[in-house]
């Protein structure tokens, strides 16, 4: 087993060590601890594999004796010497120069004994570090209270590595780790297995991740990174994270239970408001007030429908905080799919307020895009409890429209739609769109001319003269084109129902 000096120095137990001189890339194969003065140690060195020599007694003077030790050490293939020395004693430039000449790295450590044990554990490939780390993780998990943050913090302190909690897809929930796409792909692929993952990262470390199961909801990951050559450390951390994963899962489950309980009460309150009609029964109004809802206010309803699988309960906080980051203090309630939400105002919001709110909702939607792609519908401004229910209803309609409007960024705000447009929008359904396309397909093949002419003809109330004026062509041309349309489509334009169908179809495709 070998390890690079740089990586050994990254070990929690060796973080206080200082590399005075030497190449951090130096590879160490074994560790040798020796007590006594440099003079006494010199004759005890014999040739072997690349050795880290740890001087157990402090070095009080870097003089001839130490030079002689350096020479003997280099002959014995010592690649680094770790030692402690009193604060006042400095390693001089002569000693440094000689160490460099012999390619021996000098390492100042506060506790030689501790350093020796750490180095030995890493290089000798013993089980000790694994057991030690697992025990530490278990102790920390037992000591921690019911809160996730505290549990994570205790685990970090115990293990000496910063931990991150990732969701099933590898996105960071807690901590600083950010994974690249390939690492996330591996985690996503391994999520079902329930086994820990050890990945080599581009940064030259191991990403060690252990699954966190809660029994309900999707899996999460507990992850950290460990220097690449420290296999024993990585194995130990992997074991420790698995142990810690049980504790973290337990905390997550507790939090989830509380969330679900809250979600149920929110949902049922909203359902009752919807069912109640006007006026709101006093008992229900009181419950709403107790729950912190302001009913006698102006409301703008929102409906958020995720365009992929999403857990409404787990992700409600993300939604909430995303809106908050755009300055929108929404109330939100989980639905079967997605969320309903609303904004309340003391007084009737001005048109400009509504417009800026709408813009802020769009920004929020854009911000959420990478994690929770969603279609969002926004209702109009309505007052009172009944108004809230109405606005939410409009928002739900708008959201359904938004699903089929990628060109509008999956976003529809009822206020910007005329009622007619809303009506028309209802034609843009999965069934009507292909039918319209099919109906007008023969015209496409002749270029846009015929379709444009047909559109203007129908818009102008079936007036050939008007159409000719709009298109700036002779009316015979218009008549001729309409004859072509009738021939190609096989329809009769004098029939009002045919005209209505074609009118809707041209509008839909325009």
């Amino acid at each position: 087993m070998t390890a690079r000096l740089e990586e050994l120095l990254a070990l929690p137990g060796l973080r206080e060590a200082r590399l005075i001189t030497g190449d951090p890339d130096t590879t160490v194969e074994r560790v040798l601890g020796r007590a006594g003065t440099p003079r006494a140690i010199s004759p005890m060195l014999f040739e072997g594999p690349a050795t880290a020599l740890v001087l157990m007694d402090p070095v009080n003077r870097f003089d001839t004796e130490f030079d002689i030790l350096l020479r003997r050490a280099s002959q014995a293939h010592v690649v680094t010497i770790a030692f402690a020395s009193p604060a006042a004693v400095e390693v001089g430039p002569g000693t440094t120069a000689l160490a460099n000449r012999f390619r021996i790295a000098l390492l100042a450590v506060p506790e030689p004994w501790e350093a020796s044990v750490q180095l030995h554990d890493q290089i000798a490939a013993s089980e000790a570090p694994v057991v030690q780390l697992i025990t530490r993780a278990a102790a920390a998990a037992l000591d921690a209270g019911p809160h996730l943050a505290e549990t994570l913090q205790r685990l970090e302190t115990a293990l000496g590595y910063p931990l991150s909690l990732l969701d099933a897809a590898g996105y960071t929930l807690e901590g600083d780790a950010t994974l690249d796409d390939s690492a996330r792909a591996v985690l996503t692929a391994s999520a079902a297995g329930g086994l820990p993952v050890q990945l080599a990262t581009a940064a030259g470390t191991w990403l060690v991740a252990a699954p966190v199961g809660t029994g309900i909801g999707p899996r999460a990951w507990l992850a950290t990174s460990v220097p690449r050559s420290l296999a024993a450390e990585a194995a130990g951390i992997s074991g420790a994270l698995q142990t810690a994963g049980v504790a973290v899962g337990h905390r997550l489950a507790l939090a989830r239970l509380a969330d679900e309980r809250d979600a149920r009460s929110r949902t049922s309150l909203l359902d009752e408001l919807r069912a109640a009609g006007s006026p709101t029964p006093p008992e229900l109004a009181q419950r709403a007030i107790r729950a912190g809802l302001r009913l006698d206010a102006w409301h703008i309803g929102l409906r958020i429908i995720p365009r992929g699988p999403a857990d409404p309960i787990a992700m409600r906080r993300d939604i909430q905080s995303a809106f908050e980051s755009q300055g929108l203090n929404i109330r939100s309630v989980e639905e079967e799919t997605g969320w309903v939400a609303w904004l309340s105002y003391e007084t009737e919001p001005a048109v400009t307020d509504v417009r800026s709110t709408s813009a802020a909702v769009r920004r929020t939607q854009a911000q959420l895009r990478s994690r929770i792609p969603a279609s969002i519908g926004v209702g109009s401004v309505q007052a009172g409890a009944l108004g809230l229910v109405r606005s939410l209803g409009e928002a739900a309609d708008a959201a359904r429209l938004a699903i089929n409007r990628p060109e509008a960024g999956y976003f529809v705000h009822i206020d910007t739609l005329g009622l007619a447009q809303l009506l028309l929008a209802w034609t843009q359904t999965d069934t009507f769109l292909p039918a319209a396309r099919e109906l007008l397909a023969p015209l496409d093949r002749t270029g846009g001319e015929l379709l444009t002419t047909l559109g203007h003809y129908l818009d102008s109330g079936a007036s050939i003269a008007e159409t000719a004026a709009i298109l700036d062509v002779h009316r015979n041309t218009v008549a001729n084109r309409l004859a072509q349309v009738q021939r190609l489509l096989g329809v009769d334009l004098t029939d009002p129902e045919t005209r209505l169908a074609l009118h809707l179809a041209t509008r839909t495709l325009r």
Partner: protein
Amino acid sequence: MSMITASEVGSLAAGAAILGSGGGGQVDILLSALRPRLDQLAVRVEPTTGTSRTFVSVTFLGSTTVLGEKPPGGFELPEAVEAVERWTGENAEAVVPAQIGGMTVLGALLLADATGLPLLDADMVGRATPRLDQLSIFARRKVPLTAAIVTSSGLSMVIDATSPVELESTLRGAVARSGGWAAFALGPLPLDALRADLVDGSITRAVEVGKAIAEQDTLEAAAAVLGGRVAARGRIVEVERHDDPVSFVHGTAALIDAKTGAVARLEMGSEYLYLTVDGSPSASVPDIISVVNARTRAPLSADQLRTGNDVDVLALPSAPLWRSDPAFLSRSDPRFYGVSADAIMPTRP
């Protein structure tokens, strides 16, 4: 070498500075003191096999830095010699510098010149030493220990000690509390009994070293002529000194050779004691490790060494006496100076 005159003084001083191994004090102070007398200077140098029956050994004790700030008045050494002669009732017939390295030999020269006594071509170290009890004559036999000091503030003390260690520690304490440095005289001692325990030919050696350094084209050539080598060179990148009352070692310095990348390190007390190159032992006491300015070849003492100095490190063999008997070696190997290592056997180039 039978006579030191104006023409030899320069080489003698330069050689003594190199043999000082980074210690022994700055030769320039006493060189200045000699200058007015240079014209008439003619000091006899006698071999140890000569006619003298007794000798007095002299040196300076204490801080050589203070000695630079409070230069000798010239009376201190003669008064110290007079004091031991008066106390013992015997007269010294020759002068021996206690150590050849550094300024002592020039002090002995001034004394010989003033008293008309000859210098013996010998010393008791062959280099410089920080401690009296390290002198070669104490290694193998009991020597009558009558000594005198005259401190820079004029205090005279005569002391009869029972052991060299006691002599050393008592005088060291006295000097520290009176003036910071002192002229020291030991003797008169019988030459016949101690001849084999003296480092023979030291004056000749110092002149030889001084000449080689000044005259050879390269430092390597000079080192080769003297049986030594240039053991390291480069720029000083690190000098660290600390007070260490127990051991002799007070500091460490590292230099890097820009050409080869070799890292050399010097352990130093008041002298340079131990040299490693790339962590491999290269030279040690009792051999002479001398650091010289790479451009001027001027020796740099251990307390002058600074980061950024461009230096050559010269290793010269010790006086043969130190390796001739374990009794000698144990007083001069690195352990004696607090460096826990064996003496490095010299490698001839």
